[in-house]
């Protein structure tokens, strides 16, 4: 099976090359037989990539340590679940995993369009084949997962303990699923540009793919934050590290596209911009992979330096040049069909939304690449850290939050004063009352106050939209409250799913602002000693040390310190943090000891305990953090994912027609019955 897998990798490579060659030539000569052959070859590419992946999984599960990849990332006593996830724990395997998802997506995209978009498809198939070919070549020549050692160790080196975490098992595949999905819209953009069929039709084909990409990137990023928070012991979840940024960049442009696509659908504007966003999103996902894998930028996450980086750089340059050429030669075909009519219109709000998203993207990219840029220009490497990103993206983020509330309320084309008054009075009142309440309660941090003011406002707009929609349905169809709420969302998935995503965004911003009030304390205590501290809410905490214990568990030995915790005198249970030393099956130590933090979680705040060292067998040094509202970050992430799922869910045919018809009506709230689409 392993040999078959290795062989399959090479066959997949040939199949991808065949796909690209015959699809492009079929497209140029208009020969249906070549086009069909290219599509079949793309399915075959997926089939053989799958076989290669099964080969690697077989090697991992049978502990074939003659394969370098298996020996490097697993050991005999590694829990089975992590044998499965070891597939993407290292460079070579993660490239294969990437290729697997890419070819799967490509096959699905080609299959779904086997009868539609025929003029575009040869170019789409060819582009997807080329991208697959690139990944398969990089792997086969740069980092082959089937590479063998010239000797076979009796046990492997084991998996990095920090990767032995459920979050790390799911986070990378989610990111790959998201990053890879950007290739499909890119392929359609190339197809549309080459054939000059640049109407809204190609956009329809890519919208769902852009959503798939956004959905998985969102989940991947939030899971990455969660992993960093529970595993790395620094009590934060986002450090503006180069690798974190590189997953954030395509998310930003992807989000911008999901908004600007609505303007093109409704008003025929922003055609150049949309094509550009699709292309840039794909290029940023490749750039991110390059940053992650080349080691060119300092990052705590980086893979070790490897030639794979050069492959990605080459591909990135080629794709950029080609894209610029195609867009610049087709500017005439991309003329807008309408003009912006008023600054006070939904179009304008969406344009600002795009501007801010791309602004954040640019600032983040600038900050990430600044060491390289400054070295090239001034000859010395200058790094910018978290303060740079916070001071630029903080204000931009708040502006974005405000637009999240304004956009959906304002009318298309030109809003009237009465429209504005009717739509905004309650949400603004909600924001102001939140602000006033917090001020009275004693909150003084300006960033947090503005966040909660805007959060209250946007939350008010969302509630108002739901109340209006549900009310209209109850009147029109005499439905009960529950039925009206469910059907309102079910019949207008794009619009109300979008509001649910926005609700998640509001929660996230409010949770971010909570970190303005974090507190921490360090102490060294003997068994029986008590640490006392006061949190930002004024609660008095006491931590009474229960001593240090040592025990064996799975593939590791743990040294744990445990505290009995009370808040204002009330018992809150036990909290412990561990130092873990992992071993392989022969009793050899693998990796350095790792720290497992203890978290006492609640919606109000997390109490985050880090065991920093043991001076002797009953003296423990610990660091305790009080992190307000972190729980809401994960909750907000889940809400965003649910909203995304609702938007993506295929809509019944009848409802599609209805919403299409309703969209023709002038956009006034009176006419915006429960059937109109957002």
């Amino acid at each position, binding site marked *: *099976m392993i040999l078959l897998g290795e062989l399959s990798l090479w066959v997949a490579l040939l199949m991808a090359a065949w796909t690209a060659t015959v699809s492009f030539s079929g497209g140029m000569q208009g020969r249906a037989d070549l086009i069909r052959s290219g599509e079949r070859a793309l399915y075959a590419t997926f089939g053989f990539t799958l076989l290669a992946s099964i080969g690697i999984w077989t090697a991992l599960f049978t502990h074939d340590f003659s394969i370098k990849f298996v020996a490097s990332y697993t050991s005999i006593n590694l829990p089975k679940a992590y044998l499965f996830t070891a597939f993407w724990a290292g460079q070579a395997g993660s490239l294969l995993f990437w290729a697997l998802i890419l070819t799967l997506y490509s096959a699905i995209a080609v299959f779904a369009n086997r009868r539609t978009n025929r003029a575009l498809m040869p170019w789409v198939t060819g582009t997807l084949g080329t991208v697959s070919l690139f990944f398969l070549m990089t792997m086969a020549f740069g980092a082959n997962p089937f590479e063998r050692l010239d000797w076979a160790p*009796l046990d492997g080196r084991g998996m990095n303990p920090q990767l032995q975490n459920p979050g790390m098992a799911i986070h990378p595949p989610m990111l790959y699923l998201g990053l890879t999905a950007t290739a499909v819209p890119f392929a359609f953009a190339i197809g549309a540009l080459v054939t000059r069929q640049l109407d809204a039709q190609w956009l329809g084909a890519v919208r769902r793919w852009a959503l798939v990409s956004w959905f998985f990137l969102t989940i991947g990023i939030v899971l990455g934050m969660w992993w960093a928070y529970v595993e790395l012991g620094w009590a934060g979840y986002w450090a503006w590290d180069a690798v974190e940024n590189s997953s954030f960049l395509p998310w930003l442009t992807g989000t911008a596209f999901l908004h600007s696509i609505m303007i093109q659908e409704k008003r025929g504007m922003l055609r150049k911009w949309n094509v550009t966003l699709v292309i840039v999103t794909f290029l940023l996902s490749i750039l991110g992979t390059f940053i992650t894998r080349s080691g060119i930028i300092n990052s705590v996450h980086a893979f070790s330096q490897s030639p794979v980086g050069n492959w990605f750089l080459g591909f990135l340059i080629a794709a950029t040049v080609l894209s610029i050429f195609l867009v610049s030669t087709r500017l005439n075909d991309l003329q807008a069909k309408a003009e912006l009519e008023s600054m006070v219109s939904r179009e304008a709000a969406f344009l600002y939304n795009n501007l801010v998203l791309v602004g954040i993207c640019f600032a983040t990219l600038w900050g990430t690449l600044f060491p390289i840029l400054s070295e090239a220009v001034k000859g010395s490497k200058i790094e910018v850290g978290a303060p740079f990103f916070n001071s630029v993206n903080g204000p931009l983020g708040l502006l974005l939050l405000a637009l999240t509330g304004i956009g959906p309320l304002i009318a298309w084309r030109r809003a009237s004063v009465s429209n504005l008054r009717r739509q905004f009075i309650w949400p603004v009142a909600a924001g102001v009352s939140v602000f006033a309440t917090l001020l009275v309660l004693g909150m003084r941090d300006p960033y947090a106050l503005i966040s909660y003011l805007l959060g209250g406002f946007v939350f008010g707009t969302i509630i108002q939209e739901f109340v209006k929609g549900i009310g209209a349905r109850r009147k029109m169809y005499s439905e009960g409250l529950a039925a009206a709420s469910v059907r309102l969302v079910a019949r207008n998935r794009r619009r109300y799913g979008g509001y649910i995503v926005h609700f998640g965004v509001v929660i996230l911003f409010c949770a971010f602002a909570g970190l303005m009030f974090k507190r921490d304390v360090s102490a060294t205590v003997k068994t029986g000693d008590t640490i006392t501290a006061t949190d930002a809410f004024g609660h008095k905490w006491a931590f009474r040390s229960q001593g240090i214990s040592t025990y064996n568990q799975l593939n590791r030995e743990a040294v744990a310190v445990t505290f009995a915790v009370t808040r204002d005198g009330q018992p809150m249970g036990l909290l412990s943090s561990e130092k873990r030393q992992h071993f392989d099956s022969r009793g050899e130590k693998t990796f350095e000891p790792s720290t497992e933090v203890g978290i006492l979680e609640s919606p109000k705040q997390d109490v985050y305990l880090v065991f920093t060292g043991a001076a002797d067998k009953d003296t423990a040094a610990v660091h305790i953090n009080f992190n307000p509202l972190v729980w809401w970050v994960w909750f907000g992430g889940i809400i965003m994912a649910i909203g995304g799922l609702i938007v993506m869910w295929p809509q019944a045919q009848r409802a599609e027609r209805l919403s299409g018809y309703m969209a023709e009506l002038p956009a006034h709230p009176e006419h915006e019955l429960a059937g109109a689409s957002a």
Partner: protein
Amino acid sequence: MKARTKFLIGGLAVLGTAGYLMASSITETGQYYLTPTELATKVANSPRFRNNGVKVGARVVNGTIVREPSGRSLSFKMTDGAQTYAVTYRGIAPDTFTDGVDVVVEGRLDANGTFQATTLLAKCASRYENAPDKYKQTPGYQGTPAPRA
């Protein structure tokens, strides 16, 4: 005025603010990222350079790590092969910090030539990769060939 023009003005205002924020925070928060040799050269050229906060990337010299038992402060030597500096760090070292790893320290050089670090990042080249070749020398690992499927 046409709506388009108004939008452009608004857009420029947003971008201008963003640009200003970027420029000002780079001057405020940007830090030199140097090797020990580069740091020595800069300090030799202008002694006042040691007042700047800098980041230094270097490798931990084997056997030089001295940890305070509480785990909240430690000292070690870092080198790039040519220049070596003693480092004192107050804070919690990451799990990956150990002999021979690449580190990035942030802080400044004191009057005695010791680097006072405020942050310490360990950048283990084998962070995700644990090269199996290490076992080639370990007795007991090289016996019969591993089973093949």
